[in-house]
């Protein structure tokens, strides 16, 4: 089992390295550079060349790649080209906010979707099941920027219940935090809930036809008990894996939600860095998102291994 988990870890690190290389190559291929965008219209060829040399942009691609990669390994993501601060420092002010947003959304989405999925699998094709299915499909097929915009329109502009802007940095009380976080968390978790509830239902329903579930019922167990104590542990692996993929939507969905609510998180930083041609910052953000995804998948894999006695005892 330890070997299996180590193998997954090594694979994860390898993937991350590949992604880092890809990020470097793609960002190098973007048109224009930071020096040009800093100097704007005033640029003369001489000042441009001087600034480039100062920023290290005149070095060959390969050398810049090595210095960059070496820096990352030491936790040094370079200096932001836009404002001259270390990238790590810039990110450190924003990352906790994004993590809080994604974490709170996951905390809402996981239990709600599990309960909805299990409940609708218990009575397939019942009124409750059909209603859940309908709502889930609506939620997961509406883009999160539309959901977020509708929320702002209805819940803050029309009713004024929640603030339209989530300036979380200026909040100091728990109540205030609730006020500020509710809309972004809702907007973010709705589609994830829709997806995860659908998947939980499908996976569980398929499992309810297995003979061992019948055995449990014939032992005198109730349908719910058979589902939760017998069927669910068997599908923990697939459900967690499917959930990891849906939760990934949190990472990408964060982009729209943060921009719409002007939430001071990482993706807003990344969007800004792209328009500023701030390569080091952009690269670091991209890497963090990829690492986040890989960590989710890794956790799912480990849970799948732990819940399967065949793999656990291997």
């Amino acid at each position, binding site marked *: 089992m330890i070997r299996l988990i180590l193998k997954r870890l090594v694979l994860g690190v390898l993937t991350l390295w590949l992604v880092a290389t890809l990020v470097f190559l793609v960002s190098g291929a973007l048109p224009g550079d930071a020096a040009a965008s800093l100097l704007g219209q005033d640029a003369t060829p001489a000042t441009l060349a001087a600034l480039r040399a100062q920023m290290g942009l005149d070095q060959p691609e390969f050398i810049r790649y090595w210095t960059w990669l070496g820096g990352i390994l030491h936790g040094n993501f370079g200096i932001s080209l836009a404002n001259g601060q270390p990238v790590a420092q810039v990110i450190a002010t924003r990352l906790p906010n994004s993590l809080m947003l994604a974490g709170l959304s996951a905390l809402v989405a996981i239990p709600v979707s599990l309960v909805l999925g299990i409940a609708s699998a218990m009575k397939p094709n019942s009124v409750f099941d059909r209603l859940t299915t309908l709502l889930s499909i609506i939620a997961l097929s509406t883009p999160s920027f539309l959901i977020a915009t509708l929320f702002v329109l209805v819940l803050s502009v029309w009713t004024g219940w929640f603030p339209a802007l989530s300036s979380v940095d200026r909040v100091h009380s728990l109540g205030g935090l609730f006020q500020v976080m509710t809309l972004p968390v809702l907007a973010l978790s709705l589609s994830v809930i829709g997806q995860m509830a659908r998947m939980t239902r499908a996976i569980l329903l398929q499992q309810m*036809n*297995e*003979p*061992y579930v*019948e*055995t*449990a*019922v*014939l*032992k*005198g*167990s*109730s349908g719910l008990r058979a589902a939760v104590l*017998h069927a669910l*542990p*068997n599908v923990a692996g697939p459900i967690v894996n499917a959930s990891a993929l849906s939760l990934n939507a949190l990472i990408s969905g964060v982009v729209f939600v943060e921009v719409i609510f002007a939430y001071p998180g990482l993706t807003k930083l990344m969007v800004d860095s792209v328009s500023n041609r701030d390569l080091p910052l952009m690269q670091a953000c991209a890497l963090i998102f990829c690492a986040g995804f890989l960590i989710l998948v890794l956790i799912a894999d480990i849970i799948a291994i732990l*819940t*399967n*006695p*065949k793999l656990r*005892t291997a």
Partner: protein
Amino acid sequence: MSEQDKPFIEVSNLTIAAGGRDIVRNVSFAAKKGEVIALIGESGSGKSTIALSLMGYARRGCRITGGEIRVGDRDVLGLSRAALRGFRGKDIAYVAQSAAAAFNPVKRIRSQIVEAATLHRSMSREEAGRRQKALMKTMALPEPDSIGERYVHQVSGGQLQRMMAAMAMINTPEVMIFDEPTTALDVTTQVEVLTAFKAMIRERGVTAIYVSHDLGVVAQVADRIIVLKDGEVMENAPAEDVLERPRSGFTRSLLDASETRRLDLSEGHDRDVVLQADGVVAGYGRIRNGLPGYPVLHDISFRIRQGQTLGLIGESGSGKSTLGRVLAGLLPAAQGRAMLNGRPLDLRDARRRSKLDRRELQIVFQMADTALNPRLSNAEILGRPLTFYHGLRGGARRQRVMELLDMVRLPAHLADLSPRELSGGQKQRINLARALAANPSVVICDEVTSALDTVVANAVVELLVELQRELGLSYLFISHDLGKIEAMCNEVMVLLKGREVERAARDRLTAAPEHAYTRQLVRAVPQLRRGWLEEVTSVPAAPTA
């Protein structure tokens, strides 16, 4: 009526519907306390459905639409959901056909057995744990104190089946339902499990419903036999009467089908060798230095002459099917050579074989259900190999399809149906016709009769022998069923753990088996005679090699 004669289980006019059709019609029977009632019939006769209805349970898609079921003083069909939960598993318990599927694979077996007790709060967890160990011992399981700690994948099928019975016994139920509990087991294991079940039923005095399609098995355990056909009772009488003086024609046909038969085969010691294998070693995992990671077959050699059949028998896991897959080129051999009609045959991969080799050696699989594409018509299934091997198209192809259907004794109008619309026996005939479409000289038959009812399986065996006579085919006939092997094989090879332990002509093999394992195998075939089980078990079992 005295208290003792009063029926303990009483089923009257039971009707169960599925998909708008009655699959059980007006079934009535009764059982006294401590009696063992056998429900016997072919697949689709409704025997399992009836047995499950005694627990107030109907599988998805089925509905109990009429009749009355009384167990003790309960009206089972009138019980509330809560009362049903208290009844199931406590007063009436179920032993499923495949314990391997009926136990939860991710939970320890002990916890599942204990759950059956704690669920009903019939005893404390500690007491249930002690009882679980005692039952494991009663069921003659090895290491009874610790075997419950294992998971399903860590115990054998025979052990699981006994553990399933232990789980059913933990609350000492009044009624036990055995639903084909030994069908998935090898005959040698079946003897052990049957013995354990019979002892337990007698000791605890439980009333039992025993569902089976095998008259030989039923003859050993039942006091009374109920013969079912298409959801109706054909005969209901004490076991001796059903076995010795059957009144219904259907029972007689079932009894006939279980008789040992020997079809006439042509002798051919001087004919050409069609398929020959020498020193085949194969298994699973990566092949290194001529040895696979998990070797299954060791040094297998044989010859099959034209128009002859070599039977291959052994228990599950003995490597029978692996040999079939190696010869068909589906699994690479690590060592060994093979010759087909005098030409070397590639044992690494079927894709390396010439079209001629592929045409002349065909394989037919056990499950026609999964081997036939349900989206194609039967004509298309048979037509594809005709185009591939013989370039037949249009009218010529259609004509050949009709000939093939005729060859396997199927009516021509089935050509444009899908395999889904056929019965199990008809599907297996299409499966066979597809192999014949290639005009093969050798056909590997991998357990082709195992999924079929006895009567249908016998007909398929007869067909194989007729085709052999007409077309001069050679067969490698793989089966775990000694009866079928005896019926149609000139020569038999006995496999034990991937090694050949005995090879003999069919008459010699059953009359005077030499190897201890073969003797055990021959003795373990259930006989219709009552008391056979006691005879087998009174002689100490010979140790297997």
